[in-house]
């Protein structure tokens, strides 16, 4: 497929760039679900990520500061608009986030349904267009629909972030073919967002040509979050390297890996 032609010739300097900014890791970590800020910090460090998502909520004076954790880890912040069901809500929350954190970057979420937390494509496309116009660097959490992904790229999103499966489901990538189609169609980075359950899922995302992976629950809700964070770090690197290495084709039949001649009988 097209992305094969586009595979970087070498791993050297094979860095993820979003909106012209280079990120030191292709793994983006969501902070939701951690049992404590301490557990979260350990996971962030083990993951090697350079970018973490946060949500914006009413300030609780009693709660410890998440921002301090983020800054102590020296990672970039990506505010999300989780909890919004309409473009209007999401646009307003994005503006508040820009005020709060002084970053134009936003993970745009507009949810259609509280059971599935699946994105609402129509509202999402409207919000994305507005936020791009307002000068945001928009990273939309979207379905695996290639047409919607193309539309989001066309309105000026800095990346598209299709889901593999519902948020927190750990079901992996339900429709790899769509993810590969999206990678073929759009010219901006593709970040696999939501559904990752374990390391092989993250590696597969990269092998499909994704430029990065965003995950939260798979790490924060694992039995050993920091250990799983380390696993994801390695898996994303492994998958990217494998993608650039040019895998062998799938064959229905066998190919001998030892000489068939030269035996004494």
């Amino acid at each position, binding site marked *: 497929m097209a992305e094969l032609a586009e595979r970087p010739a070498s791993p050297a300097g094979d860095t993820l760039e979003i909106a012209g900014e280079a990120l030191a890791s292709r793994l983006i970590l969501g*902070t939701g679900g951690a049992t404590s800020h301490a557990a979260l910090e350990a996971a962030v460090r083990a993951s090697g990520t350079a970018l973490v*998502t*946060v*949500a*914006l909520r009413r300030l609780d004076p009693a709660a410890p*500061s998440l*921002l301090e954790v983020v800054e102590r880890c020296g990672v970039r912040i990506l505010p999300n608009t989780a909890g919004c069901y309409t473009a209007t809500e999401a646009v307003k929350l994005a503006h508040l986030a820009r005020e*709060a954190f002084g970053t134009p970057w936003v993970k745009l979420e507009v949810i259609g349904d509280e059971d599935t937390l699946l994105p609402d494509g129509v509202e999402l496309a409207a919000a994305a267009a507005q936020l791009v116009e307002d000068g945001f660097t928009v990273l939309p959490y979207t379905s695996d629909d290639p047409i919607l992904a193309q539309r989001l790229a066309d309105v000026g999103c800095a990346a598209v972030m299709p889901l593999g499966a519902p948020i927190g489901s750990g079901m992996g990538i339900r429709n790899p073919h769509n993810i590969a189609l999206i990678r073929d169609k759009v010219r901006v980075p593709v970040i696999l967002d939501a559904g990752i359950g374990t390391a092989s899922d993250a590696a597969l995302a990269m092998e499909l040509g994704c430029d990065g992976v965003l995950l939260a629950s798979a790490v924060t809700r694992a039995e050993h979050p920091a250990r799983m964070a380390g696993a994801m770090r390695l898996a994303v690197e492994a998958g990217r390297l494998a993608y650039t290495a040019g895998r062998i084709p799938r064959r229905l039949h066998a190919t001998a890996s030892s000489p068939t001649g030269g035996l004494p009988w």
Partner: protein
Amino acid sequence: MQLVVNAVASTVDDSITVADVVHQLAGPDPRGVAVALNGDVVPRARWADTHPSDGDHVEVLTAVQGG
């Protein structure tokens, strides 16, 4: 007068500013905080000279864990 701050009603001095409200909630150096007055964003630069009116809703938001 009465303000509703983060969904909690409270009686405040009439001369109160948004900056005062934020200070009370978030302390002297409130980093990573954004404010909405009756649903509209109040830029940080305007906190000090923005005076809520009786019955206004003030929302003070900050970062929490989120995926």
